[in-house]
């Protein structure tokens, strides 16, 4: 991105106070990210429909635009134009703020994620911890949605989602310690640089635990207990409709994209790939959409766990596997 020196003299020459300059640049970057994510959202929704159709012997969207490509515009319009029902018995402010919190948590997570060799909003040296910590604020959004909408399904759904998301934070973080030990740093871009051999081959167990925990984190099958249709009729966002539900949907797919990006960066060697450097972001995107495809493929194949089985899996299976992974990595590194 732009180096800070040019910025400084540009600001001084035009007499712009320093803080205004930083705010402007931050706003610019945020807007860019928002646009990218908007585009990514549409692509993901279209991909989800097409992939699921393929697996289920269907055609998927065909009518709108050539081969259904304009379907994503239609979806976006649908969310915007649909009437935004506000249930009378709901707590007004909690109900309204829930999607904002969810969206904010997911959006902040993108700050640290690199899209290319230099293309990162703020390359913190504690990037990894940041990326694990911030999205977990989303749990608050879920609970606010559940209790805010005063709908029994929503309450039960949000309790389930909260329990699941929190309990899967632990194995998810522990599984990454292996990488930190190998890479020695927590700055994401330097982790990618250090990946001569992709970490997936060095850390297979770690990758497995991380992948399953991410699925649980994103509330995707086989862990989508929160909005399971057959039991709680869409869980915590039952009462939402219109643009509010759109935000939930947007937040969900954004966190899906972020998680896939994180997996690509950490395990699949980011933008390493044959060909000139300019091609780096393309490689990264290919890997990201590969991971997303696997996530969707898993979603449309497996049934759903029961809530107590999810907990058992989280604490009794994934956590020990993560610890074993750390032990093994430690032994190998010390030798």
């Amino acid at each position, binding site marked *: 991105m732009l180096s800070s020196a040019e910025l400084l003299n540009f600001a001084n020459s035009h007499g712009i106070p320093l803080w205004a300059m930083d705010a402007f640049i931050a706003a610019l970057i945020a807007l860019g990210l928002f646009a990218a994510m908007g585009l990514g959202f549409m692509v993901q929704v279209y991909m989800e429909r097409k992939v699921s159709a393929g697996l*289920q012997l269907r055609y998927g969207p065909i009518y709108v635009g050539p081969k259904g490509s304009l379907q994503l515009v239609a979806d976006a319009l649908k969310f915007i134009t649909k009437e935004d029902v506000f249930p009378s018995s709901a707590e007004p402010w909690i109900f309204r703020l829930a999607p904002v919190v969810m969206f904010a948590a997911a959006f902040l997570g993108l700050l640290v994620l690199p899209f290319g060799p230099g293309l990162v909003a703020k390359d913190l040296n504690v990037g990894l911890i940041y990326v694990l910590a911030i999205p977990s604020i989303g749990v608050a959004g879920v609970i606010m949605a559940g209790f805010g909408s005063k709908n*029994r399904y929503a309450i*039960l759904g949000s309790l389930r989602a909260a329990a699941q998301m929190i309990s899967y934070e632990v194995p998810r973080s522990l599984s990454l310690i292996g990488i930190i030990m190998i890479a020695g740093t927590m700055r994401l871009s330097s982790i990618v640089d250090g990946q001569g051999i992709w970490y997936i081959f060095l850390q297979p167990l770690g990758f497995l635990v991380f992948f399953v925990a991410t699925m649980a984190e994103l509330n995707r099958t*086989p862990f989508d207990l929160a909005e399971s249709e*057959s*039991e709680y009729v869409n869980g915590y966002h039952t009462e939402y409709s219109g643009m509010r539900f759109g935000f939930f949907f947007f937040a969900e797919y954004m966190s899906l994209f972020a998680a896939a990006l994180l997996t690509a960066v950490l395990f699949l060697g980011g933008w390493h790939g044959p060909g000139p450097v300019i091609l780096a972001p393309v490689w990264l995107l290919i890997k990201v959409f590969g991971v997303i495809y696997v996530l969707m493929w898993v979603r449309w*194949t*497996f*049934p*759903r766990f029961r809530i107590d089985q999810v907990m058992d899996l989280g604490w009794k299976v994934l956590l020990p596997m993560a610890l074993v992974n750390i032990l093994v990595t430690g032994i190998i590194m010390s030798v």
Partner: protein
Amino acid sequence: MSKLEEQKLPDKLPDSLLEREFEIEELKSRPEDTIVSQELTINIGPHHPSTHGVFRAIMDMDGEIITRIEPVIGHLHRCFEKIAENRSYAQFMPFTDRMDYTSAMLNGWAYAMAVEKLAGIQVPERAEYLRVIAGELNRAISHLMTYTFSGLEAGAVTPFFWWFEERDKLLDLFEEIAGARMTFNYARIGGVSGDAPDGWFDRVRDFIKTLRSNLDEYYKLLFGNYIFKKRMKGIGVISAEEAIRLGITGPCLRASGVNYDVRKADPYSIYPRFDFEVPISYKGDNYDRMYMRFLELQQSLRIVEQALDQIPDGPIMAEGVPRLVCPPPGEVYAHVESSRGALGYYIVSDGSPKPYRVKIQAPSFGNLQAFTSMVVNNYFADVIMIFGTFDPCFGEVDR
């Protein structure tokens, strides 16, 4: 005041339904640190994704465990028995399809068999074979439906769409002989309404071949799956005595170890000519109930293949059966093994062209009653799964 206009909660129900005010005095008497938990009353309304029709259950839930269930049925009640009393025997035939709409062929067959027994009509051979072929194919597909629906309830959506694929091919076949896709109205008193067009039997054989080759994929995807096994094994266990006491019939009874299949216990029509086994198992949990259906599906395909080899030529309608059938006064009872259990028709006739009384014994009615009395103290997610394995069809329950 009809049920539809005003959805007032029945006030005579126990007070746990209403929003329970917390008894303040009782709270004071408690020490500060005890956690006070309040049971949540949840209403799985008539319109809910996994109620297989219009079934309403008001449940009291302590956390995830169901402590009390209050079923409310009757939303789809059209009182076919009253309609039957105002129509001639032949006119009531299309209404039989509207009862168990997933296996409509078997309903029409049971009703026609009852009236034929009453009027002493001898059905020609070919008609009997066509009825067996249509009935068994319909049973196979409705068993597969129950199997994939339970997958849907557990969250696996893909097999459900594969089932649509198979059903569509079958409905094309039924379209050729009966003329409709769901309300076939295929059986007639004294025979069947349409003969099989030429080439139909080969198409049925192809359909069976493809279905059979897909079956092991269905099996591996759901039954083989670790998650599905965890969701199904050991849940909703019913012992043999318990099943009989609650009045279950059909695959759910055979899953608990009671070997009662109408086709073997009281062989009707031409079933003695086919050799097929009745699968039975003894654990009586969700997994077994679903596995019974899976095995029965394969047996049905076997029966159809044998029927296809033995079908003779000849008329499809008994001769000399007037449109205005007037059976002699008397009573008759005929039953059939439908996909959900023993489906029977008890008809009283007073010699006039209109039946004096038609009683429809619906297997789902007994199964649903058994479900509501054995389901307490299970996880809410398991209640939905157990409901799926019983799979009551509400056109039949509410009649």
